[in-house]
């Protein structure tokens, strides 16, 4: 290759280097700032009375006793907030036929899930507010709960929102190729039902918001534990009829999010209303118990799946029928139909089979609303696809790795359009599979499995291939009318000391967004990374953009930073050229210096350039106007999404006496394009895997027939803890996207996308000789024993 090295390949650059996160230091010293850490003068605390019933008419609410408690500032119900806001409806217009009902900060006359907020107390002290809460008297008239998804859609079922006519929020059908003919011609058809338990995000920091309204200037500053400050600002100004100039949203440190903190929650909107009403700062921090019944849930799906193959193991067709329950409202503004939609889109898409039929039905129920949670739809599509493929392999007596090898999209077959219409620019399924077999020592593992089997120990190996949707373009949400930006911006400023301040519209929740930004900026500008200061999470101080979700931070904002840094670099070299009387093209930047582009000789330290611009303009030629601030934006346009791919392998041991599944080891091979920081990428994958392992083995929101959550404490709802989790090994294959200079795709969903499918296949691999099979997650000891016929 001739010509100068690209910014991606410079030996002194930071792209591709494992680097720790500068902003992690404050967190390690207990000096982070989470919303609950903020103390403002006259701060008041809001708490919420929530419906104890899944479905009930609110006959009357008596707040008089509560209002008399010492220290209580105000007690409100829905009617006290009327006129302060406009309600919201969580539908996307491009999802044809979708419907939902208007949602309010506090339930008006009917509560539709256990946990829906119906009244609020604001007091000087949180404990006092909770004392008062207990004195609110509500007269309820209980209505029938609608918990079962089939029941919700059964003919004659009472609609949860009478004005909507029925409980069908959305449905979609897709029929590609010749599905009936394929199933008719097949030598083998496997059909099964896969069930996925409703679970939730369990962010270590619960949802938190502080609304600080200043009536003097009419401004509202919202400190929010959120991934999407710009979106929230737009939502707030729309629904509280405020001007764009009146609202500022700030996200400080965010204690975990995983998709939970991109939604509009009634209690948070109520807190904003209370701040405006009371003209003083009002804070709401959910406690853990109310988080379980008020954070969004996800993944309640029952999928009937079919696969058709010929006798050589060629997959001919897939068919699914997905039924999902989303609670009583479609969540605003992303809707609750996207998860099912993504199941339909992703199912089987990494295999060559051209014939595919799908039906999706999205049902209202009286349980908490669901919506986007890490790896939206992916784990479901992956488990159904890979579960069917493994069952087929068993029926055909073909090794599961070999069956995949025969059917995966070929690495040289791109671009490729899937039967559901997804366009893949370039994926690497075959390389990932072969890399995995070597990485996990698959053949040796199979031999080891046989040795253990001979000793009566049941170990299993599970493979799961997957694709991941990253870098979504404007056709994802914006086209459907949601105030969600698909573009991001970066603004870079050279400061007098030769350091760079980079403000960027994505946010940081620990993924390492800020470090990624600093690595790219420092590489392009040829400065030590310590000289880059990154600013995120503030609508008043950052360019406009979408925020951090759907694995878009690096691929989209990273590209904006790359382009912005190039623009700033060009401006710096123009100025340095004027000072040095050299053509800018003969100059370069390296190690904080302007250098000769050919010889590398240091010509001028960067700080001298900026000081000349800022303090000694008198020394500059008269026609030179320094521009040491440059901004660029980026939005993916070439493809609707940048798909990534990978494969996971899980090795388990099943105790057939107790039903316990021990995770021995887990491997991931992932292709996310250009890797900016391997350390951060690998930790994203590991964290994602463990969220998937939690779904596979532990996590479920257990509801009884009355719609009451049975396990709504952290002691009862099981999350993955250190002792049960395995070591997770990671390897990379790299296929850059050509739609950006950076070539980076996302990686945040990958771990969660494939982990639960790999566990399922491993368990079924262990139990197959015993004639047992599990397809309902989580795979609890009780379910394992039932599958074995022991209980």
């Amino acid at each position: 290759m001739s010509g100068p090295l690209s910014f991606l390949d410079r030996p002194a650059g930071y792209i591709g280097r494992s680097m720790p996160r500068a902003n992690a230091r404050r967190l390690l010293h207990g000096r982070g700032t989470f919303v609950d850490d903020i103390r403002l003068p006259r701060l008041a605390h809001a708490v919420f009375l929530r419906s104890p019933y899944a479905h009930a008419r609110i006959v009357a609410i008596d707040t008089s006793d509560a209002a008399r408690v010492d220290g209580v500032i105000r007690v409100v119900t829905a009617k006290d907030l009327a006129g302060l806001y406009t309600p919201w409806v969580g539908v996307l217009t491009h999802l044809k036929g979708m419907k939902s009902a208007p949602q309010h900060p506090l339930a008006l006359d009917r509560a539709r899930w256990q946990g829906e907020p119906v009244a609020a107390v604001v007091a000087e002290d949180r404990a006092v507010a909770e004392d008062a809460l207990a004195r609110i008297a509500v007269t309820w008239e209980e209505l029938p709960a609608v918990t079962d998804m089939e029941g919700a859609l059964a003919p004659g079922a009472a609609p949860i929102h009478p004005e909507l006519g029925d409980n069908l929020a959305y449905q979609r059908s897709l029929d590609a190729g010749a599905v009936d003919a394929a199933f008719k011609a097949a030598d083998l058809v496997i059909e099964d039902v896969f069930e996925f338990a409703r679970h939730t995000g369990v962010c270590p920091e619960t949802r938190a918001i502080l609304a600080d309204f200043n009536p003097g200037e009419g401004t509202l500053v919202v400190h929010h534990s959120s991934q999407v400050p710009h979106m929230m600002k737009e939502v707030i100004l729309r629904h509280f009829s405020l001007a764009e100039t009146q609202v500022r949203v700030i996200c400080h440190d965010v204690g975990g999010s995983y998709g939970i903190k991109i939604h509009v929650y009634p209690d948070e909107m109520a807190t904003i209303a209370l701040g405006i009403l009371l003209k003083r700062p009002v804070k709401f921090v959910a406690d853990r118990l109310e988080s379980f019944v008020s954070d969004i849930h996800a993944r309640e799906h029952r999928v009937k799946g079919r696969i058709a193959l010929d006798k050589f193991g060629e997959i001919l067709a897939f068919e699914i029928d997905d039924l999902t329950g989303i609670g009583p409202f479609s969540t605003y503004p992303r809707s609750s139909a996207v998860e099912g939609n993504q199941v339909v889109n992703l199912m089987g898409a990494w295999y060559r089979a051209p014939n595919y039929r799908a039906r999706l039905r999205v049902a209202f129920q009286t349980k908490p609303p669901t919506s986007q949670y890490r790896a939206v739809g992916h784990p479901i599509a992956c488990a159904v696809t890979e579960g069917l493929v493994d069952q087929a392999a068993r029926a055909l007596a073909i090794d599961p790795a070999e069956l995949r090898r025969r059917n995966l999209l070929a690495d040289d077959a791109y671009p490729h359009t899937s039967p559901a219409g997804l366009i893949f620019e370039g994926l690497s399924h075959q390389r990932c599979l072969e890399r995995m077999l070597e990485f996990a020592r698959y053949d040796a593992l199979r031999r080891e499995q046989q040795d253990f089997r001979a000793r009566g120990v049941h170990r299993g190996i599970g493979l799961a291939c997957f694709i991941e949707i990253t870098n979504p373009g404007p056709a994802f949400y914006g086209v459907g009318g949601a105030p969600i930006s698909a573009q991001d911006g970066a603004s870079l400023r050279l400061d007098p000391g030769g350091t760079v301040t980079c403000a960027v519209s994505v946010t940081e929740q620990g993924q390492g967004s800020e470090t990624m930004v600093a690595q790219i900026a420092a590489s392009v500008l040829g400065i030590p990374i310590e000289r880059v200061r990154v600013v995120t999470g503030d609508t008043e101080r950052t360019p406009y953009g979408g925020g951090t979700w759907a694995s878009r931070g690096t691929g989209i904002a990273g590209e904006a930073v790359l382009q912005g840094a190039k623009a700033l670099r060009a401006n710096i070299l123009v100025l340095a050229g004027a000072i040095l009387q050299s053509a800018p093209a003969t100059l370069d930047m390296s190690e904080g210096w302007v250098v000769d582009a050919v010889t590398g000789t240091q010509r001028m330290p960067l700080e001298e350039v900026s000081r000349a611009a800022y303090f000694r303009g008198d020394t500059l030629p008269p026609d030179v106007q320094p521009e040491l601030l440059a901004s660029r934006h980026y939005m993916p346009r070439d493809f609707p999404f940048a798909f990534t791919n990978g494969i996971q392998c899980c090795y388990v041991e099943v105790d057939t006496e107790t039903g316990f599944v021990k995770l021995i080891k887990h491997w991931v091979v992932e292709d996310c394009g250009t890797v900016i920081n391997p350390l951060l990428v690998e930790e994203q994958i590991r964290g994602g895997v463990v969220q998937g392992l939690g779904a596979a083995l532990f996590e479920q929101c257990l509801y009884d027939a009355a719609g009451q959550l049975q396990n709504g404490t952290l002691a009862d709802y099981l999350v993955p803890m250190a002792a049960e989790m395995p070591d997770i090994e990671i390897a990379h294959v790299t296929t850059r996207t050509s739609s950006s200079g950076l070539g980076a795709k996302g990686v945040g969903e990958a771990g969660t996308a494939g982990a639960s499918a790999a566990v399922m296949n491993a368990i079924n691999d262990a139990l197959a000789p015993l004639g047992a099979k599990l397809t309902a997650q989580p795979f609890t000891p009780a379910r394992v024993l039932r599958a074995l016929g022991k209980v």
Partner: protein
Amino acid sequence: MSETHAIRLRVNGEEVSRRVSPRQSLADFLRDDLGLTGTHLGCEHGVCGACTVRVDGGIMRSCLLLAVQLDGAEVETIEGLSESGAIADLQTAFHERNALQCGFCTAGMLITTAALLEANGAPSRAEIRDYLSGNYCRCTGYHAIVDAVEATARSRRQRQDR
């Protein structure tokens, strides 16, 4: 709830005297009365470990203790342990290994694993995982935390051998 009790205790090496409500937790006392917000509340029912502090040398859940019980006690929080340098090597290992993401659980993780390393200078990976069984992290998947603790133990042993 207006009745208060006088307590006197040492927090991060400093004498502190306050009047506290009998229902106030140690966590709320540290955060609200002393402004030590590095101690985080993740569940307030003793499961997640985010509020872990040292009380008289032992690790405790500050959400399950009442401030009024702490009269005469010696309490150390992440702020004190950071400023004294007592866990600096562990913090560095967490940093280098990226053994934290959102950082909400991190104070509890550091305080818990520091106690493990005092009790066991050469813990196995399984022992580290067991010791952390009361500390919830949603971001890392724990692998990096285990690595960081293992690395700290190793470097402490090497320092002793020299």
